[in-house]
C-alpha cells in the first residue's frame, strides 16, 4: 500500500487560515489501511481543526466526505455536489488523490493533510515499513524476494557494504541490513551460488530516471 502520516496541526491550521468553509476529503483505500486519512481520521481532524479555530475566536465550517478512491476520477466526481459550497479542499489522501482533486476542480485550492511516504507493508500493528520504490524493472527474482533498492540504505545491488553489523544497517540499528536478509534467504533457498553473480548497473529509465511514467493498456483504453 501507499503509506502516509498526517502533517502537524500547526501546518494544517496555517494553510487554512484564510478560509471559513472547507471540504475535508478522506480516501477509503491505502490511507484508511494505514490509519492516516480514512473516514475515522477525517472525523478526528475535522473536530481538531474546528476546535483550533474556535480557540482563535474564529469559526471553520468543515464538510466531511470520504471517497472510495481519491485517485480515481469516477469517485472524485462525487465532490461536485459539495465543491461550490466551500472555499477550499483539504485532502487526507496520498499525493495522487490530492492531485486528482486539483486536476478536476481547477479553481478550487486544495491542500494536503498528510505527507505521503512510501510503498510498504504492515510489519505489525502500527508499524509500516518501506518495501518497494517502483523502479519499473523488478529484481526480486534475483535477490530472494527482498528488494535491495528499497531496503538497502545505499541501494547496493551487490551488497552488503562494510557497515553491516549483526544484521543491522550502519545508518540506524533499527534498519535491517537488506543484504543480510537477502543472504539468509538465498541460503534458505539453496541458492548461495547466485550471490556471486554480479548484478549489472541498473537502467533507471524504467524508474523516475526516464521522467514521469505512464502505463497505457491498449486493450483497456476506450
Amino acid at each position, binding site marked *: 500500500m501507499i503509506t502516509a502520516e498526517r502533517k502537524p496541526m500547526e501546518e494544517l491550521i496555517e494553510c487554512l487560515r484564510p478560509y471559513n468553509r472547507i471540504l475535508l476529503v478522506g480516501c477509503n483505500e491505502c490511507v484508511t489501511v494505514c490509519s492516516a486519512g480514512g473516514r475515522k481520521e477525517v472525523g478526528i481532524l475535522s473536530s481538531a481543526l474546528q476546535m483550533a479555530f474556535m480557540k482563535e475566536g474564529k469559526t471553520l465550517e468543515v464538510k466531511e466526505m470520504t471517497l472510495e478512491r481519491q485517485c480515481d476520477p469516477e469517485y472524485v466526481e462525487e465532490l461536485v455536489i459539495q465543491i461550490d459550497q466551500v472555499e477550499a479542499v483539504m485532502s487526507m489522501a496520498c499525493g495522487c488523490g490530492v492531485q486528482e482533486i486539483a486536476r478536476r476542480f481547477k479553481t478550487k485550492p486544495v491542500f494536503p493533510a498528510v505527507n505521503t511516504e512510501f510503498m510498504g507493508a504492515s510489519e505489525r500493528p502500527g508499524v509500516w515499513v518501506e518495501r518497494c520504490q517502483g523502479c519499473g524493472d523488478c529484481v526480486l527474482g534475483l535477490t530472494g524476494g527482498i528488494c535491495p533498492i528499497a531496503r538497502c540504505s*545505499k541501494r*547496493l545491488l551487490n551488497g552488503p557494504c562494510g557497515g553491516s553489523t549483526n544484521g543491522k544497517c550502519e545508518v540506524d540499528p533499527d534498519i535491517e541490513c537488506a*543484504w543480510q536478509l537477502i543472504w539468509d534467504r538465498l541460503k534458505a533457498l539453496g541458492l548461495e551460488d547466485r550471490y556471486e553473480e554480479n548484478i549489472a*548497473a541498473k537502467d533507471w529509465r524504467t524508474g523516475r530516471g526516464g521522467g514521469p511514467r505512464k502505463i497505457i493498456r491498449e486493450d483497456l483504453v476506450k
Partner: protein
Amino acid sequence: MKTESVLEKVFASGELAVTSECGPPRGAVPEKIIEKAKMLKGYVDAVNVTDNQTAMVRMSSFAACVFIKQLGMSPILQMVTRDRNRLAMQADILGAYSHGIDTMLCLSGDHPHFGDHPMAANVHDIDSVQFVQMIKDMRDKGKFQGGDDILNPPKMFIGAAANPFADPFELRVARLAKKINAGTDFIQTQCIYNLDKFEKWMEGVRDRGLHEKVNIMPGITPMKTVGMAKYMKNRVPGMDVPDEIIKRMAGVPKEKQPEEGIKISVEAIERLKAVEGVKGFHVMAIEWEQKVPEIVERAGLLPRPTIDL
C-alpha cells in the same frame, strides 16, 4: 602491465607496496594538502586522496590529487558512488587521467547520515562493484558505461575496499570475489586490529586462489589514545578492535599512548608481512600523517623502490 600506475609497477616488482592517505582540507587551502603530502614523500609509493570522507564536504579528491601529482608523487583518486551519477564519475575519470592520475579506489562511501549534509540526496546510481566494472570497461574495452567509444580511454589501475570484519562474515570472501570478477586490481582493507580474524579471512581468500588475482593491502591505522581505540571499537561501523588492544592502550600512561599505538601498528605490519597473499600495507594515520614515515621505517618497509614516474 595494464597501466602506467606506480602502484602496479611496485606490485610487479615483487616488493611489498606502501600507500598512505591524505584527507583534503575543509576549505580552499591547497597548502594544507601539499603540507600533508610532503610528509609522505619518499616513504610511500602512492597516496590515497579521500572523497568527501565521512560524508563531510572537503576539497575534491580530484583537485587535491592534482596538487599531489605536481609534487612528483603518485596520488590515488578515491571516488564514492554516493555523490555522483555515472556521467559525473566518468567525466571526472577522464579529467583525472588527463592530469596523469592513473590509480583509483572505488567506494560506495559513508552514508550522508554520518556527515555534515544529512539532508543531501544520496545518488547511488551504481554500486562499488558496478563502479569497478565501469572503469575496467573504460580501460579494457575503451567504452563508456553507456556503450559509446572513448577517445584515448583512461587506463586506470583499479582499487576497491574490503572489510574482513563486517557481517555476515561468511560473505566476506564472496564479496571480495565479486569485486575481483568486476575487475579489481588491488584491495585496501578496513583498518586491521583483529589480526587473527584477518588471517582467517586471508585463509578463505587463499582457499579460493583469490590472492593470485588481486593485490591485497591490509589497512593499518595507529591509535593515538585509548579514547580513540574505544571510539573505533564502539562507534565506527564494521570496525573490529579486540579488547587486548584497548587494554594495552589503557595500560600505559596517557603521554605514552601514542608510542604504544605506533608500536601496535608496527607489530601488526611485521606479523602480516608473513601472511601469504599480503602484497603491501595501506597506512592511514588519520590527521597524524607525520607519523607515517616512522611507522614505515620501523616496520622495515624502507627504502621504497625507485619507479620512474
